[in-house]
C-alpha cells in the first residue's frame, strides 16, 4: 500500500490519497494519470492490468486499486 501511495503522490502531491474515495469520479485522476499509474503499478507489483479493468470503480480509491492488484495477481 505504501508503494502505491508513493506512486500516487508523485502524480498529485496535493491530494490526500488515503482519505479520497472519488479519484476518478471526482476528476482527480484523468486518463493520462491512470495510464501513468498503471505503468508504475505494473513495474512495482509485477502485474499486468488489462484495459477492461480500467473502470472508475477500480481506480476511485487506494483500497480499490489494491483490491484490483490483488485480484490480478491471484488470477
Amino acid at each position: 500500500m505504501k508503494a502505491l501511495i508513493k506512486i500516487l503522490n508523485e502524480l498529485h502531491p496535493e491530494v490526500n490519497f488515503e482519505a479520497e474515495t472519488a479519484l476518478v469520479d471526482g476528476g482527480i485522476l484523468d486518463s493520462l494519470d491512470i495510464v501513468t499509474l498503471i505503468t508504475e503499478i505494473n513495474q512495482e507489483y509485477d502485474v499486468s492490468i488489462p484495459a477492461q479493468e480500467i473502470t472508475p470503480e477500480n481506480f476511485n480509491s487506494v483500497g480499490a486499486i489494491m483490491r484490483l492488484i490483488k485480484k490480478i495477481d491471484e488470477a
Partner: protein
Amino acid sequence: MLFTSYEFLLFAGMLLVLYYTLPKKTQWMLLTLASYIFYDLSGPGYLIFILITTTSAYLTALFIDRNTETEVRFLEANRDKLTKDQRKKYREGQKKRRFFVLIAGLVVGFGLLAVMKYTAFAVTNINFVLHKFGAEGLNIPNILLPLGISFYTFQTMGYLIDVYRGTVRAERNPAKLALFVSFFPQLIQGPISRFGDLHGQLISGHDFDSKNLVRGLWRMLWGYFKKLVIADRILVAVNELIDKPAEYRGVYVVLLILFYSIQIYADFTGGIDITIGLAEALGIRLAENFNRPFSSKSTKEYWRRWHITMGTWFTDYVFYPLSVSRPMQRLSKFCRRKLGNSLGKRIPVYLASIITWFLTGLWHGAGWNFIVWGLLNCLVILVSQELQPLYDGFHKAAPRLTASRGYSAFMAARTFWLMGAIRILDCYRNVPLTFRMFGSIFTTPNWGELAGVATGALGLGIHDYVVVLSGCLLVWAVSRLNGKKDIRERLRGRPVASFAAFSLLFLSVVVFGAYGFGYDAKQFIYNQF
C-alpha cells in the same frame, strides 16, 4: 430525412402514438421497423451497409459468447481431471480463438467504414506521390458516404469489444441487435451509446408517462431553438467568411472563430437535444453528450465536456488498450532504461495519446485538416501536461488570484478561443490556407472594418445579430440554471408558467427561426461525419 423537416415531425408524432398504443412486448419491433424506414428514407442504398455491419456483428458476438460458454462448461466438467497448467493453457487457447474472431469482426466493421469514407482520400494521397514521380494518377472514386456510418460503426464495434471483454452478453435475436445498431434518433449523429446502457431500455418496452413525454418535447423544442434560431442564422455569415478567404482576412478570421464556435455548438448540441428529447418521450434515456463545454478552464476539461460519448469511446477502446498493451509496456521499460525514469514513463503515454488523437481526427473526416486538428488538440493537451508544475507553482504563489471568478473567466475564455482557433481547420478544410488565415490576424490591421459587419457586410443585418446574441444569452442562462437544477423540474407543478414558457419558446422558433428567402434549414454539421 432531416430532423428539421416537416416529414420528420410527422414521422416522430405518428411513431409516438403507435408506440404507446402497442403492448410493451412489441414496442421494440416498431422501433426497429421505424429505424429502418427512417434510414431508408435518409438516402438510397444506405440500408445495405447497416445490414452488413449488423450481420457481421451479430455473428461475431454470437461466436465469442458461445465460445465463452463452452469454455466455462468444459472447465466445470473437467474440474478434477485437469491440472492448473492444463486449465490455463485451455483458457488461453480459447481466448486466442475469440480474439481472432473479434479481430475479424472489427476488420469487417471498420473495413466497410474505411472503404466508404477514406478510399477517395487514400487515392488522392497516392496520386500526390505518383505525380511527384511523374507517374499518372489513379481515378478518384466517387463514393457516397452513408449517413451516420461513423456513429453506428463505432457503437457496434464497442458492443463487440464489450462482448469479448465479457462485460455484456451477446444478443441472440438479430432483429433486437438491429435495433441497437440503428435506433433512429441517434443513428446519424450520436450520442455513441454503450450496449449495456441502452439495449435493455430499447427492448423492455415502456408505459406511457406524461412526465417523460413533456420532458422529451421540451428538450426537442430546445434543440430546434438552438438549431434554427442560432445555428442556421449565423450560418450565413460563417459561409460568407469561409467562401471568400482572400476577402475576409485579419479581424474577419477572429469573427469566424467566434461565429463558427457558436454555430457548431448550437448545431451539434441542438441536434443532440432533439435526439435525447425524442428518446425521452419514448421512455428511453440516452447518454448526455455535452456538459457546458464552453465553461471549461483547460483543453483536457473541454474534452471531458464536449462530445463526451466519442471521447470516452476513444479512451476506453483505443487509448487504454493501446497504453497498457504489451508492446507499449515493453517500450516503457526500454525507455526507462535508456532515457531515465522521468522521460521514459512519458514516452509510451504520449505516443498512445498521439495515435488516439490522430484517429480522433481521422474519425471526423477524410482530410489532412481533420488529422492536423486532432494532432493540434493532442499537442495542446500534452504541452499543458508538461507545464502543469508551472501552473501549480503559480496557483501556490497567487492563491487568491487563481481562486477568483475573474481568473476562472479568463481561463474559460482562453480555452474557448484556443479550441475555436484550432476548429477553423474544419472551416477552410485546407491546412496551409488555415495557417495563413490564422496568421493574417496578426498581419492584417483591419479592425476598423468591424463596423461594416453590423450593417450587412456578411449577409446578416443588425437584427440577425440581435437574434443570435439574444439566443446565445438565453442558452447561457438556461445552461447555468440547468447546472443547479433541471429547468423542466423547476417548471413542474406550475402549469401556467410551464405553458407560457413552452409557447414563448415555440413562438421564438417560428418567428426567429432561419427560414424563408435566403435560408434553408441546413443539414446538421455532425451528420456529415
